[in-house]
């Protein structure tokens, strides 16, 4: 008999007033009893709508049934069949707009907590299971993957399982991409990311860090070195600014800079780590996505007395996950909705002293279907502060497109690909993730990496003999 409770089993969390002063993980995860109780809410329905809502098609009801039976390792293995990063996805996927949105239980009451269950299975495995990652028999064909973020990791993992000789080139000194430089420790512990990277290495994937492709080697040079196919998953590394007055003042950061200092370089442990970050007194984060929530919650944890989120639309329109908005509010982040910055104010020495905003009201829906914000006349107001973090999105990094002849890109920089395969305009070169779509989610990038791995295998399966080393 299924558990007919209308509500998800609550997941224990650190108390908001405690956690907003530390960088330890906020959500603590289910224990075995909680997981089984929650799993019993799944009806194991025949139509399996949740699976179609998952960009990598995890066999959701199957893994949940295994949790009910107490086969937690088996549950993990089911997830792992199609998802290279279960412990990551269980934490950062926007389940409410994917699998859980389609869950039958969500029609009356809350959907099954698929994300929490995924995380449980993955954490259980990391704590108790033994990695079964084994090297597939090598087919001797070399494939290069550029970027060790979610798209690249997934693509590399799938190709390695098919027997390809995969080398991943990563620009930073550490593999993981946005999982290490962008998403903070309190939402995704770096030790978990490292375990996923280690699993990749166990499969025989080689990772070369400190390799900025486009500078030290070009795509064409990789081809000359014998890589039969190349996947570009270089991400959306170029921060957008608002182009308003005062953006060059000291105290204004792109979210990329602020988060990279804190997450990758561990500036929150300065001076034990050498990279500094200014401790804000009062900070404002511009934007309404997950990155904005991360930046605001980091600012609070560094010790800022007040942290504002300034967003030009309403809460309904915020692209951030519901859980992140909820957590941010609990931690004391102040939301200034329907507000848009008009200029950043500074003193004679070039330091930020305040931000001027106007209030907005929502008009007709725009191209994205969201109601377009329009300025409310005479509504200007100012917040006194010393830190402004601009989190209004990123564009694809131009390094590769500028150094690769015949690689077609959109005017805004995205690499043009065939959607079903990830195939670019250049033979043997595939792309996926934020480098193609502009800033999106971890799971969509993973889905693209998966699609490309399949297409690369199809492409290389012709004339396999000739392509061996």
């Amino acid at each position, binding site marked *: 008999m299924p558990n007919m409770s209308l509500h998800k089993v609550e997941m224990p969390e650190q108390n908001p007033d405690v956690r907003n002063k530390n960088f330890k993980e906020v959500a603590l995860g289910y224990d075995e009893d909680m997981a089984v109780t929650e799993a019993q809410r799944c009806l194991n329905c025949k139509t399996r709508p949740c699976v179609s809502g998952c960009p990598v098609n995890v066999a959701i009801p199957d893994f949940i049934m295994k949790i009910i039976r107490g086969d937690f390792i088996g549950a993990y293995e089911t997830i792992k069949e199609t998802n290279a990063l279960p412990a990551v996805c269980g934490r950062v996927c926007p389940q409410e707009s994917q699998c859980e949105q389609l869950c039958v239980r969500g029609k009356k009451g809350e959907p099954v907590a698929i994300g929490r269950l995924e995380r449980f299975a993955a954490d259980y495995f990391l704590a108790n299971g033994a990695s079964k990652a084994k090297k597939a028999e090598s087919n001797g064909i070399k494939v290069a993957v550029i970027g060790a973020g979610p798209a690249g990791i997934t693509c590399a993992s799938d190709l390695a399982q098919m027997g390809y000789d995969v080398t991943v080139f990563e620009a930073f*000194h550490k593999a993981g991409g946005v999982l290490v430089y962008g998403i903070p420790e309190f939402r995704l512990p770096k030790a978990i990311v490292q375990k996923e990277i280690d699993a990749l290495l166990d499969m025989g994937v080689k990772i070369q*860090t400190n390799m900025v492709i486009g500078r030290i080697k070009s795509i064409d040079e990789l081809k000359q070195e014998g890589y039969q196919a190349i996947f570009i998953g270089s991400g959306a590394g170029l921060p957008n600014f608002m182009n308003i007055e005062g953006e060059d003042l000291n105290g204004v950061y792109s979210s990329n800079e602020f988060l990279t200092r804190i997450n990758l370089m561990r500036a929150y442990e300065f001076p034990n780590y050498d990279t500094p970050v200014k401790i804000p007194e009062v900070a404002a984060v511009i934007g309404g996505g997950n990155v904005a929530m991360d930046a605001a919650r980091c600012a609070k944890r560094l010790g800022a007395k007040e942290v504002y989120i300034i967003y030009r639309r309403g809460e309904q329109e915020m692209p951030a996950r519901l859980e992140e908005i909820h957590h941010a509010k609990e931690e004391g982040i102040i939301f200034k909705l329907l507000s848009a910055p008009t200029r950043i104010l500074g003193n004679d*020495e070039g330091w930020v002293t305040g931000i001027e905003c106007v209030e907005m009201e929502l008009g007709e829906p725009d191209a994205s279907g969201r109601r377009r914000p329009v300025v409310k006349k005479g509504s200007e107001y100012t917040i006194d502060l010393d830190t402004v973090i601009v989190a209004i999105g990123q564009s694809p990094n131009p390094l590769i497109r500028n150094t690769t002849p015949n690689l077609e890109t959109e005017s805004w920089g995205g690499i043009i690909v065939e959607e079903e395969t990830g195939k670019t305009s250049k033979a043997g070169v595939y792309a996926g993730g934020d480098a193609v779509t502009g800033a999106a989610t971890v799971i969509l990038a993973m889905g693209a990496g998966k699609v490309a791995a399949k297409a690369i295998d199809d492409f290389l399966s012709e004339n396999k003999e000739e392509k061996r080393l």
Partner: protein
Amino acid sequence: MYEILKKQELNEQVKLMEIYAPGIAKKAKAGQFIMLRIDENGERIPLTIADYDREKGSVTIIFQEVGKSTIHLGMLNEGECLADFVGPLGVATHLEGYRKAAVIGGGLGTAIAYPQAKALKKIGCDVTVIAGFRNKDLIILEKELFDITDKTIITTDDGSNGIKGFVTNILEDKIKEGEEFDLVIAIGPLVMMKAVSQLTKRYGIKTIVSMNPVMIDGTGMCGGCRVKVGGQTKFACVDGPDFDGHLIDFDLAIRRQNFYKKEEQTSVEKHRCRLEGVN
């Protein structure tokens, strides 16, 4: 790991190191830079490539011990390794098509001006080098510069080497004497590059400066290195580090350079304490 093949003291505060990085050595060009990280706790610091040896697979860096990381770097010895060494980053200096160039180095900037002068000479350009230092004890690369051209002038602010004056004075004298430069490359402290650019603007001589702002990744990701060039925001790491000296907003660059002054001081103090065993 990237091994230190050679270490040499150029003056009390300035050191030269050759680092084993064959991939970078193979691709490096004058004007590009690398980023390095000494160890797991280290910060990523940008340093312009001072020289390279493609056969040996080495990249030369020259640095002044000013902050915690450079002081720490200076303490390492031949045979030891750096955790990370990334490059070559940035766009190489565009040197083709010039007939007569003045290459100006200010203090440590001379280390970066040196490969530029060398590269210009190699492609047949007539090169004058003007290198300025505060006093004679701080002079670096004197022999190397004279090896490139006998039209090298080394000047000191206090005249302690026999030639007194700022690089701008010497450059202006040369121009007044009738030297028809069609290119000036100025590399050094921001105030010096600003002064040179103001001077050459009056004479209408194309001037390239090399910016060295605060940066984290060096690949266009953080935007921390943004500079204003002709009213437009550019990222020094991917659009530079070279820019038109007549278009750069130097005052803004000077202000941004002070962003982390206080934290850098904290870091140095902590490092000194540790060295002296106080902590």
